[in-house]
């Protein structure tokens, strides 16, 4: 459970669709399903259209429809399209959309509906059409929509950049890869303790590019659980350890991670937390009064896509952004779920994948 306050995501980016990303790029964005370039994402519903007996009645009919049958909440839909008929070019007008006018979706009754009567003589040939009910979020979706019914499209520059993987400048990318390299190195240090370790994590404050913690997968390593009891903890995934070490850097934390965590740990030790931060260094500029959501504003680099538990742990911790190297079955940030992009959860964050993918793959 967490506090009930709704906090707006810093960026309203919520979708990952690696397949739409250009190959050979150094990074791909994992966007939510609503950005996918398919029919499901644009949501086709039934509409009812009529043909104008003559183009010259267009303005009269449209004026009437705007006043008496507005398409409320569907501003992206154009009302008219031109169609070729055996009788030459004609204008077709969208009268009803099933989601708004369920009662009117009857071809035999259309022309006798009260709201239609004043323009009845100018229209003919009622027919059903498919209408994209959601405004297109991407250019690809716009192109899909247009195949069914004309719509307007307002391009979101940020989304376009994410889809084209051109959000980051070269020096940003260098910094991202440098942090991922450290995550890879961290996993390798873990491997020395147990060959099954294949996950490394680095948590960074992007405002200053300061490393806050590093951790590797400790599931197969005996370490202190509590009060001198040492065991292999099945939930000591690298992400969980890294989150706990961030807590430690803030004067909190749960585990000692003995004997793996050194008292004056350094960045290249594998397990590390930044002990130089004043305990309230971060979060002070945060609008949240909940100082304990301690990963607020932090970026996470992880060699393999986090599992569902770890993905949700990152969400609970309110991270800003996650970068991972390779996807995996059951992953929570793109594979089994896209937990970071769900509107029904109380925090959203950006996720990028394929960072140093081949290096992460061989871990």
């Amino acid at each position: 459970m967490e506090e009930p306050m709704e906090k707006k995501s810093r960026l309203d980016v919520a979708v990952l669709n690696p397949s739409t990303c250009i190959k050979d790029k150094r990074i791909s964005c994992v966007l939510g399903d609503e950005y996918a370039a398919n029919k499901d994402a644009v949501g086709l519903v039934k509409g009812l259209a009529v043909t104008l007996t003559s183009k010259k009645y267009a303005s009269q009919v449209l004026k009437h429809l705007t006043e008496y049958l507005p398409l409320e909440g569907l501003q992206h839909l154009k009302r008219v399209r031109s169609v070729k008929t055996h009788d030459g070019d004609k204008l077709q007008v969208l009268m009803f959309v099933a989601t708004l006018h369920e009662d009117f979706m009857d071809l035999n009754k259309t022309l006798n509906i009260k709201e239609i009567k004043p323009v009845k003589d100018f229209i003919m040939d009622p027919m059903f059409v498919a209408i994209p009910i959601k405004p297109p979020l991407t250019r690809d979706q716009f192109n899909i929509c247009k195949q069914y019914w004309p719509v307007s499209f307002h391009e979101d520059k940020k989304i376009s950049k994410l889809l084209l993987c051109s959000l980051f400048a070269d020096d940003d990318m260098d910094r991202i890869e440098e942090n991922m390299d450290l995550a890879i190195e961290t996993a390798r240090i873990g491997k020395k303790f147990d060959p099954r370790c294949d996950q490394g994590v680095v948590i960074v404050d992007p405002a200053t590019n300061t490393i806050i913690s590093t951790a590797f997968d400790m599931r197969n390593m005996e370490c202190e659980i509590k009060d001198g009891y040492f065991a292999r903890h099945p939930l000591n995934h690298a992400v969980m350890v890294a989150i706990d070490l961030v807590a430690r850097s803030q004067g909190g934390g749960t585990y000692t991670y003995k004997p793996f965590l050194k008292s004056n740990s350094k960045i290249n030790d594998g397990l590390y937390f930044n002990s130089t931060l004043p305990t309230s260094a971060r979060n002070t500029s945060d609008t949240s009064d909940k100082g304990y959501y301690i990963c607020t504003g932090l970026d996470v680099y992880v060699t393999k896509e986090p599992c569902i538990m770890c993905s949700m742990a990152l969400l609970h911790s309110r991270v800003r952004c996650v970068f991972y190297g390779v996807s995996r079955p059951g992953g929570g940030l793109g594979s089994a779920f896209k937990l970071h992009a769900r509107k029904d959860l109380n925090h959203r964050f950006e996720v990028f994948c394929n960072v140093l993918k081949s290096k992460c793959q061989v871990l």
Partner: protein
Amino acid sequence: MMDNGNICETSSNISNWMESAFKYAEEALEHGEVPVGCVIVHKDTKVIGTGRNKVNETKNATRHAEMVAIDDAMCNMKTDNILEVFSESALYVTVEPCIMCAASLRSIGIQTIYYGCKNERFGGCGSVLHIHTDEALTASTGQPLQCKSGYYSERAVKLLKSFYKQENPNVTLPSVRQ
């Protein structure tokens, strides 16, 4: 009801274990934590682990009651085969486990979860996602997990409401339903 041939779950047992879970939820409230509490019960006979929310205390947003109880069980049992113990154990928790806890409980193979009220915000056992039963997760997260709900849910909701009330009188109540 007979389960696994030897575990007899009577309703009075369930209420007793739930009663203990509430004790820890109340303790959480006293410590200024979101009031969720739980107990892990081995073979319906013995409490082997207890937990309450410790998010504020540890400055770690993942220290939910369930995670704390798992550690507690490990430390109490001190066995090399803790997963076998978990496979014979049930978790009694006042509020539906979140997505993170549902995934962790499934991955360690807890036998059954009994919970009080639903968790509409993060619930991983039916409210937001069905992490406990999702067949697609068997390879990555383990066998599906049995889940039974609705035990003293009113009481669990009341506890949560009292927490959010003291927290911030202006804030809307949490979206939990019974």
